C-alpha cells in the first residue's frame, strides 16, 4: 500500500494550520479586549493619574506571596494637589520625554528596554533617594544635570546630560510616581522601598 495516511497528508496539515492560526488569533483578540479593559488608567491594576497626589508604597503581601502597590493618604507631588486632567498632563509630558530622550535604550521600564542602567519601574520608591524629604529635589537636580549630581554607585557609569528642562523633569517624576503604583504581579520581587524600615 502506497497511500499517504490522512495524518501525514498535505491537505490535513493545511487545514490544521488554518484552524490553529485562526483559533489562536481569535483567542488573542478576546483576551486583548479583556486585558485592555482591565488596565485602563483608573482601573484596579493601573490607577488613575491623580494617584500622584497620594502616598505610594510597595509591600510584600504574605497571603499573596508577592509585593503589591499600596496607595495611602494624601502626599502631594511638589506640594500641590492636581486634578485628574492636570495629573494626566504631567504624566503625559513625562512619558513623552522619556521617549524623546531615548531612556529605554539604557534603562528598563516595567523590565523592558536596555540593561546599561537601572530599572525604572519602582524608581520613585528607590532607597537611592536617601529620604522622602530630599527625594523630589534630588530627582529634579539629577535629571537636569546628571553629570554634576551623578549617582554612579561606584560604577563610573554616568547618565549623560540630556538637556531636560525643569518642566520635563517634573513630568518625568510624575510619570515615575504614577508608574510605581501599577500592579505588576509582584515584579520586581523582594523590593524594599524608601518607606520600608531597616
Amino acid at each position: 500500500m502506497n497511500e499517504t495516511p490522512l495524518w501525514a497528508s498535505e491537505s490535513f496539515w493545511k487545514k490544521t494550520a488554518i484552524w490553529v492560526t485562526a483559533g489562536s488569533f481569535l483567542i488573542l483578540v478576546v483576551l486583548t479586549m479583556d486585558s485592555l479593559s482591565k488596565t485602563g488608567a483608573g482601573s484596579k491594576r493601573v490607577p488613575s493619574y491623580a494617584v500622584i497626589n497620594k502616598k505610594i508604597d510597595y509591600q510584600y503581601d504574605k497571603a499573596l506571596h508577592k509585593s503589591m502597590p499600596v496607595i495611602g493618604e494624601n502626599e502631594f507631588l511638589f506640594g500641590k494637589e492636581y486634578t485628574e486632567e492636570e495629573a494626566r498632563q504631567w504624566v503625559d509630558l513625562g512619558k513623552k520625554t522619556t521617549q524623546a530622550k531615548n531612556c529605554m535604550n539604557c534603562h528598563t521600564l516595567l523590565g523592558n528596554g536596555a540593561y546599561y542602567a537601572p530599572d525604572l519601574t519602582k524608581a520613585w520608591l528607590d532607597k537611592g533617594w536617601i529620604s522622602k524629604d530630599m527625594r523630589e529635589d534630588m530627582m529634579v537636580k539629577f535629571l537636569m544635570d546628571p553629570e554634576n549630581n551623578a549617582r554612579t554607585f561606584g560604577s563610573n557609569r554616568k547618565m549623560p546630560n540630556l538637556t531636560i528642562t525643569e518642566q520635563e523633569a517634573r513630568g518625568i517624576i510624575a510619570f515615575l510616581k504614577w508608574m510605581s503604583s501599577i500592579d505588576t504581579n509582584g515584579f520586581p520581587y523582594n523590593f524594599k522601598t524608601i518607606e520600608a524600615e531597616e
Partner: protein
Amino acid sequence: MSMDTSGLNGVMQNAAALYEKSRACLNNFKSWVQLDSSHLSDGRQLAVKYFTVAVILFFAQILFGLLAATQFIYPGFLYEILDFNVNRMIHINAMIVWMLFGFIGSVYWFLEDESGTEVVGLKLGNIAFWVFTGAVTLVVLVYLLVQIGPGKDSSLWFINEGREYIEAPRWADVGIVLVVLIFFYNVVATFSKGKWSGIAGVLTLDLVALAGLYVAGMFYMTNITHEQYWWWWVIHLWVEATWEVLVGVIMAWSLMKLLGVGRKIVQTWLYIEVALMFGSGILGLGHHYFWIGTPEYWLTIGGFFSALEPIPLVAMVVHAVYDAGTHAFKNGNHPALAWIIAQAFGNFFGAGVWGFMHTLPQINIFTHGTQWSASHGHLAFFGAYATINIAFFYLAMQQWRGNVWMGGGSQNAWRWKWALGLLNGGVLGMTIALLIAGYEQSFIERAVEGSTWGGYFAAQNHPSFQNAMAWRLFFGSMTFAGFILLVWDLLTIGKGEARKAPVIIES
C-alpha cells in the same frame, strides 16, 4: 553687492574631484569583483540590491554593538558624544532592518522561480528599494547627529520614538508600511499572473500579518501598560511568529532547490510548522505580559504556550537535517547548505532552548530585564535570522557568477569555513558570557538585593559580571573578524571557477 565666488568655485572643484575619485574607486572595485549582472534576471537583480544594503547594515549592527560593549567596560568611552543609548539603538535597529532587507531580497530571489513568471511591478519594486534605503540612511543620520529631542510629539515624529526595536520616527513608520505594501503587491500580483503554490499561499498570508501588525505599534499612549501591550504585538508577533514562518517559507524553497527535496514533502512540513509556530507563538505572546500591569491569567497562558514554542523549531531541525541526510548532503553550494544547517540548530538553541530557559514566570520574575534577555537575543536573532540570510547571500553569489560550482573542492574554501566558524563561535561566546552575567544579576541584584538601584549596581560591579563583559567584547571582536572574512569570501567566491554547478532535480 559683490560676492566672492572663488571659495565657491574651489568647493565645486573639490566636489567634482571627489566625485571623479569615488567613481574611479567604484570602477576599480567593479573590475576586481568581476560580477556579471547579466547572469541574473531582473527580479534577482533587485534581490541582490536588497542583499547589498543588508550586508552594509549588518556591518553597522556589529560596529555599534562593539561600541556599546566597550562602554560596559569603559563607561567614559564616547561619553556625551555617542552615548550608550545611541549605540545600542543603532545596534538593534540596524539588525531589524538588515534582516528585513535580507528577507525581502530572499523573496524577490525566489519569486520568479516559484511563480514561473517575471516580477510584475519591478519598476515599483526598484523605486520602493531606493525609497526604503534613503529613508533608512536619513533615520540613522538623525539618530547619530540629532539623537534626542524635547518631550513633544514632534520629537516622536521626526527624531525617534524611544521604544526599543521600533525607535524609527513616526514618518518612517508610515514609509515602512508603504514599502511593505508595495512589496506585498509585487508578491501577490506575480503569483496571480504566474502560478500559486502552497509556499506562495503561506507567504502571502504571512505578509498580510507582517504589515498589519506593524500598524499596532504606531500610536503614542500615555498609559504605559497599554503602550507596551501593543508594542509587544509588533515585536513578539514579528520575531516569534511571522518572521519564523517567513523563514520556514524561505527554508522550504531553498531545501527544494539546494537538495532537490520533493515539493510535497516540503509543503507538508511547512504546514506543520505553521500550525505549530502560530499555535504556540500567538498566545506565547503572553510571556511578555507577566509584569507590565496586565492581568494574572497571562502568567498561565503565556507560560504554557511560550513553553511550547521550541516544538516547531525541533521540527525544523528534523526537517532540515533529515532531508540533507537522505540526499547524502549532495549539493552544489556547500556554504549555503552549511548556513542552512546552522540556521536549523541556531534557531532551535537560540530561540528555542535559550527562550525556554527563562520563559516560565517562576524564573522570569528574576531574569526579566537582565542580561539573560541579551543572551537569548544574541543567539536567537543570529541563529534564526542572520544565518538564513547569509545562506541566501551565498545562493545569490553563485548565480551572480553564472551558476558556478560551489561544492566540494572549491578554491579558497577555507574562507567560508573560517567565516562560518568565527561568526558562530563569536556569537555563541557572547551568548555564554551574557548568560553568566544574567545568572549573576538574577542572583545578586534580584534575589539577594531585591532589585533596588543599589542592588543593580552591586551586581554590575561584581567581578563575575565585569569579566563576562570583557569576554563579551572579546567574542564580539571575533564575530567582527568573521564578518570581515565573510564579506571577503562573498566578494571572491567562485571567481575564476570554470566548473558549473550540478543540476539538482526534485526527487
